[in-house]
């Protein structure tokens, strides 16, 4: 009997309606551990490459980890992964909340979903009992209505529901998965994959917590962690202001994405900062399973133009950037309303906001007209933003084109619109500007999922004495945020593996290493206490690298080459104003940094992990699946 996990993976074939349970054994769990690595394992073994992401052959994996559900802040996330309909390459998205612990308590560590149901269904897992239920009563409903209806149909108000809304049903390529209307697997179109499988929801309920190897030790670490969260500066910031805390610092540093990533300062930034957020729309804070950070926000407003219901979620920083500054929208109520419309329909707010920025810049330059769009769409049109969100969610008018994602929409519109369609590997951009943090820019360029802001810890925090948070990794000098030299490559490589631990073990970045309250030492101690394994930071970092290499190999199999490891053209242009005026990422130096990174990783000059690296990581089996 394992400690901390169930030792069971549930396989669901929606075409045949069959279930089976795989019990891979401790060696397999110790090799892959959880989240991103378990997901990558199944995407590599069950897909052959070249599949249609919206076809029945695609595989959707919902994976927790060996430590998910343990009683300590942040050990509550799960990975949703599939071949992405947005990027046609590796797709992965994490969500926190309560779903992952509940799935563990229901008896499974991960769910692997194949095929396509003949008609809409939802999957229920209740204390080990698995069933597919008719979803005809919930198909067409938004995420909130779906949640309420499923509670009613199952007769259990405590079920945890991972669902799609109308956007997922209509195959909006950036549709997300909603978890009880509070937490979202936002990126890469995982909700679209569910829609393509006629899978409306996955419903879990469990009461059997996996036994821990050393509960007293974990209790001691959890208590220490909780106390540290109260005083550790970045956690205090998140507890106070949620992720909106970032707006002020990013704008003041000149890297708040503004006007479709063309600028780094926004003259209405104060309207989007926490102080105004709190005054105008804040209702109360929310949290995730066992977490004392409580960075979530609920919002409320009776404004007839932008009504806000606290049950439908409050905007995080990324949404404030995507629906706010990047659209020159200084109306926080409009930002929050657009967020709620996305949540109800089940669309990623980052992608939806990026598509609107694209439309606004096309409108400004005469590529799209009022007739094309259905209304004028100038920068900062607070009401127009919400209108366009609904058009996309319903695939109405131009929304039908935009719902295809950045590459396909720009190709369809043509007329030079590609110039304003910013994406990396097909994924539109989270709201950060690489001109002010080049390590993060490397993360955007190199992530297997396309532009990704959580691929590597952002450079800025590790300048000055901040580097000491990384001393356990052997980084002994301050990081210089604007450089693209060998030191930056070393920082990025180690930082990527370190932050990869959080996706590997399904731990929230806001509770974990390297910047938040957890230390590397106590993270390892917690894994030992939960699993009973005689593990180490070395072993966990190796598993993180294994996960990275597996997702990279997935993309190699799909035909991606080194030319895809790039940033957007706009970041090679000088920042027009603000504290970083004139600053750009030198294209040649950045390419050299990427090439050096391949070498540091032990990959070939095309960025492909070779035989020796696969042997090193016990991944030789991948060669037979290429």
């Amino acid at each position, binding site marked *: 009997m394992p400690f901390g996990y169930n030792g069971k993976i549930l396989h669901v074939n929606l075409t045949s309606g069959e279930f089976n349970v795989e019990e891979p054994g401790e060696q397999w769990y110790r090799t892959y551990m959880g989240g991103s690595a378990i997901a990558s394992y199944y995407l590599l073994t069950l897909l052959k490459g070249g599949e249609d992401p919206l076809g029945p052959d695609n595989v959707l994996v919902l994976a927790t980890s060996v430590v998910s559900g343990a009683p300590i802040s942040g050990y509550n996330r799960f990975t949703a992964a599939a071949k992405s309909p947005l990027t046609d390459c590796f797709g992965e998205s994490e969500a926190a909340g309560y779903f992952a612990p509940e799935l563990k308590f229901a008896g499974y560590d991960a769910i692997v979903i194949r095929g396509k149901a003949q008609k809409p269904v939802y999957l229920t897992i209740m204390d080990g009992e698995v069933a597919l239920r008719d979803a005809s009563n919930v198909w067409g409903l938004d995420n909130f209505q779906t949640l309420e209806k499923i509670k009613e149909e199952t007769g259990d108000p405590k079920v945890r529901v991972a669902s799609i809304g109308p956007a997922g049903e209509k195959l909006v390529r950036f549709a997300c998965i909603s978890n009880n209307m509070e937490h979202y697997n936002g990126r890469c179109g995982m909700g679209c994959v569910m829609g393509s499988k006629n899978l409306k929801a996955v419903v879990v309920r469990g009461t059997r917590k996996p036994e821990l190897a050393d509960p007293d030790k974990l209790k001691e670490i959890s208590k220490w962690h909780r106390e540290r969260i109260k*005083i*550790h*500066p*970045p956690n*205090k*910031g998140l507890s*106070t*202001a949620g*992720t909106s*805390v*970032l707006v*002020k*610092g*990013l704008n*003041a*540093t000149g*890297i708040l994405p503004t006007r479709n990533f063309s600028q780094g300062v926004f003259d209405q930034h104060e309207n989007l900062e*926490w102080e105004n957020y709190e005054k105008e729309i804040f209702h109360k804070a929310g949290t995730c399973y066992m977490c004392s950070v409580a960075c979530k926000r609920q919002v409320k407003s009776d404004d007839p133009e932008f009504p806000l219901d606290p049950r439908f979620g409050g905007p995080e*920083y990324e949404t404030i950037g995507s629906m706010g500054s990047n659209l020159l929208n200084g109306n926080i109520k409009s930002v929050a309303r657009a967020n709620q419309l996305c949540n109800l329909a089940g669309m990623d707010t980052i992608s939806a906001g990026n598509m609107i920025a694209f439309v606004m810049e096309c409108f400004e330059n005469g590529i799209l007209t009022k007739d094309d769009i259905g209304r004028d769409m100038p920068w900062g049109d607070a009401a127009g933003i919400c209108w366009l969100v609904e058009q996309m969610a319903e695939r109405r008018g131009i929304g039908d084109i935009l719902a295809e994602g950045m590459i396909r929409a720009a190709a369809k519109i043509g007329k030079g619109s590609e110039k304003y369609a910013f994406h990396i590997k097909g994924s539109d951009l*989270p709201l*950060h500007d690489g001109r002010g*943090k080049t390590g*993060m820019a490397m993360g955007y360029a190199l992530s297997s999922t396309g532009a990704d*802001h*959580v691929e590597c*810890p*952002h450079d*800025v*925090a590790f*300048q*000055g*004495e*901040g580097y*000491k*948070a990384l001393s356990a990794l052997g980084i002994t000098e301050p990081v210089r*945020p604007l450089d693209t030299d060998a030191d930056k490559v070393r920082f990025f490589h180690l930082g990527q593996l370190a932050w990869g631990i959080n996706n590997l073990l399904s731990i929230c*970045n*806001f509770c974990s290493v390297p*910047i938040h309250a957890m230390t590397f030492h106590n993270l390892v101690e917690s894994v030992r206490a939960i699993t009973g394994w005689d593990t180490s930071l070395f072993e966990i970092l190796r598993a993180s690298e294994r996960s990275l290499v597996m997702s990279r190999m997935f993309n190699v199999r799909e035909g991606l080459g080194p030319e895809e490891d790039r940033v957007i053209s706009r970041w090679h242009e000088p920042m027009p104003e603000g*504290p970083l005026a004139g600053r750009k990422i030198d294209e040649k130096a950045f390419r050299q940094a990427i090439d050096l990174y391949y070498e540091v990783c032990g990959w070939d000059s095309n960025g492909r992990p070779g035989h020796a690296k696969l042997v090193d990581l016990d991944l030789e089996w991948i060669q037979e699946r290429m």
Partner: protein
Amino acid sequence: MMVSVKLYAWLKQKKGAVVTLCLPEPSVVADLLREMGFAQHDVCVIAVNGVLGHYDTPLHNGDKVSLIPFICGG
């Protein structure tokens, strides 16, 4: 007591790269932030004499404090 404060990124733009402050005894980092007009959530990393600290870290005459702002992302 006199404390020397080194500031990074936008904190530096607002107050200068290095600032010397006179604080009453006893004081902690939170007092220093208040004196400088920064909110606690403006700051991501605090170091006192080269050791990572927090808001309640006590300050003494001659201490060297580093403040790095909250602009990480997530």
